[in-house]
């Protein structure tokens, strides 16, 4: 059993045993963990022997909390899980409730939802790109990424009234209609993005030091990726087709033209490239929809108090980090009997020990970056 005192003893100097191995605590406060993740690393010199995650520093018992919230309320808690894809979390919950109530969502709401999802995905990947480069010691990309992300945040702010935890998607549609400026602002963003995207490659992707740091590091075979339940860009970097938007299309994703980005490298660089290319696919989706937002209601007519029939409902959506599953067990009441969020970060973290063994401590940081761990998503 892990005891904190034990860890403290292990990490104080002088315990470096005959094997020459020693443990260090990375986190809960550490610049590379981007949150309160605590990893206990066993090292031999600079080489990693074992990585042991200790979670729970930001656990808020969202699943338990949701058991006492009704079907309209619980969605707002989920924005706080993976706060970088708040829209997509809300979307997943809304879809699950709609599945239970068999609500038909009006086409306008569907398009708005997808637009918001894809904007969120781009924003999330942009933040990831900056943070990833910062983990590798390059500060500048972070600010360049924030320039574009900022304009997405402003778009969100206009329509949803919030920049991070949007709480915009509700069962039956969206909370309110789009801001009149929405289309113009999105088009401006698209223009800005296209003008600046080449900077990303010039600054980071093409850099020889960056490529040396990423290529051949953190090898994750397709078989292991599936077995460990790795999803999202991390899995697609290992050539595992895992895009829920293609496998189990929800809303109108099956009518849109976009490619599932797959890379065969299986290393950190492949995972990096997947995200870079995925941003372009998201932009493609936004471009298809921005001029074709159908007129009509933004919300289906629903009762004030939602009551799901007795049964079990499961939805899977693709967040920026991978597959988010929402599993609602209903007893027929106004609150869920049991709710489970299958968060992508939790499974992606479990593979860290497997891919990090034998590599250097500097690589661990790069691998954590390419797995794109968001700690509130892991802890829920």
């Amino acid at each position, binding site marked *: 059993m892990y005891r904190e005192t034990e860890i403290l003893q292990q990490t104080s*100097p002088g315990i470096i045993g005959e094997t020459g191995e020693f443990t260090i605590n990375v986190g809960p406060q*550490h610049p590379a963990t981007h949150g309160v993740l605590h990893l206990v690393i066993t090292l031999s010199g600079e080489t990693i022997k074992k990585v042991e995650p200790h979670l729970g520093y930001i656990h808020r018992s969202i699943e338990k909390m949701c058991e006492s919230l009704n079907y309209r309320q619980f969605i707002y808690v989920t924005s706080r899980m993976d706060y970088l894809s708040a829209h997509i979390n809300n979307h997943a919950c809304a879809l699950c409730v709609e599945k239970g109530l068999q609500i038909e969502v009006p086409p306008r709401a569907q398009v708005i939802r997808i637009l918001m999802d894809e904007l969120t995905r781009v924003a999330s990947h942009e933040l990831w790109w900056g943070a990833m480069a910062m983990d*590798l010691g*390059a500060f500048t990309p972070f600010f360049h990424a924030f*320039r574009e992300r900022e304009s997405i945040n402003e778009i969100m702010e206009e329509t949803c009234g919030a920049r991070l935890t949007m709480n915009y998607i509700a069962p039956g549609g969206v909370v309110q209609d789009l801001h009149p400026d929405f289309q113009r602002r999105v088009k401006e963003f698209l223009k800005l993005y296209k003008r600046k995207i080449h900077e990303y490659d010039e600054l980071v992707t093409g850099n020889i030091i960056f490529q040396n740091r990423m290529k051949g590091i953190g090898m994750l075979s397709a078989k292991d990726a599936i077995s460990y339940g790795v999803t999202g860009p991390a899995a697609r970097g290992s050539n595992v087709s895992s895009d829920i938007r293609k496998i189990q299309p929800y809303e109108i994703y099956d009518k849109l033209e976009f490619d599932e980005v797959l890379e065969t490298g299986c290393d950190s660089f492949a995972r990096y490239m997947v995200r870079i290319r995925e941003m372009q696919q998201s932009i493609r989706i936004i471009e298809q929809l921005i001029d074709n937002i159908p007129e009509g209601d933004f919300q289906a007519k629903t009762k004030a108090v939602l009551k799901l029939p007795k049964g079990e409902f499961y939805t899977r959506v693709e967040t920026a980090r991978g597959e988010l599953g929402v599993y609602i067990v209903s007893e027929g009441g106004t609150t869920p009997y049991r709710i489970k969020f299958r968060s992508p970060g939790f499974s992606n973290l479990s593979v860290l020990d497997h891919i990090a063994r034998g590599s250097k401590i*500097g690589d661990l940081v790069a691998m954590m970056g390419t797995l794109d761990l968001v700690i509130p998503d892991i802890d829920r």
Partner: protein
Amino acid sequence: MWSLAHIANEIHQWLNNTFNPTWTLIIEMVLAGVAVIGLFAALGLVLVLMERRVAAWIQIRLGPNRVGPLGLLQSMADTLKLIVKEGLTPDGADKVMFNIAPFIAMIVAMLLMAPIAFAKDFQLWDLNIGVLYVTAVSSIMVISILMAGWSSNNKYSLMGAMRSGAQIVSYELSAGLSIMTIIVLTGSLQVSDIIQAQSNGWWIFKGHLPVWISFIIFIIAVTAETNRAPFDLAEAESELTAGFHTEYSGMKFALFFLAEYINVFIVCAIGATLFLGGWMPLHFGSNNAFNNAMDYIPSSVWFFGKTFFLIFLIMWFRWTFPRLRIDQLLNLEWKYLLPISMFNLLLATAMAILGWHF
């Protein structure tokens, strides 16, 4: 014409007329000490501000702009904060070593000031092995880092110190060998001789291929030696939180911080002296009008201009490149830079013997 040498001579004359020679020497030494400390403080403030402004410029933001006009007093305010802060010593630390380490870093940086020619005939100590002195003294820096890392009683610090040790010891080789290229071409270790040899053109123009190669290697090696990104593995904040100075706070941390910037200044000054002619103005062959115009600019301006150009170059690296990994860092030195600089030295020697340079 106004020059630093002129002022120095005036002071020397006045002292000689007023006191006997022994007192004159003592007073001059004190003055030199005060001048170095003053330069130190001034450089620290200027370089920190410059780094922040350069970083801000590269990162499309403004940088410090609130304290004083154009934010010029920002680093002053920061220094004040650091002085007032408590300097903690961890419980398990080796207290003597822990507290001495930052001062060693500082003293080394100060010692390095001695042979640098800041302007024409303005030099603290023109010793005949000036360049050798610089390479020798700068190696002491690693001791202070190792002391800091070991005595902190923290594994992050120890790892940072060990990385730094391996790194500085390795990169000293190629830095030394690239300096050797110039020494071979000049035939002297004395700083004034080296500068004088460039009166008809800087080595970077005269020496063509071997000097270009050694200039590039020198810049890479000194960036590594001063633990600057992309070779900042000793600090590596995303891996080792802050490396060897994780446990330091207050003024003790500030001394390390300052020593880093002073070291950057010194290596750039050495680079400017060896490759870009030190205080020597830019001359073009026999174009007298141009040469005279260039001569009119004070020599200290030339020296600081070149040095700050190199400093800017090194800052540019820092804010553009990602960090190397420890094994890649050592590979780069031992597998690429060292063989290349050895071969380059051979080339330079052949060139010096055959007189192929201009």
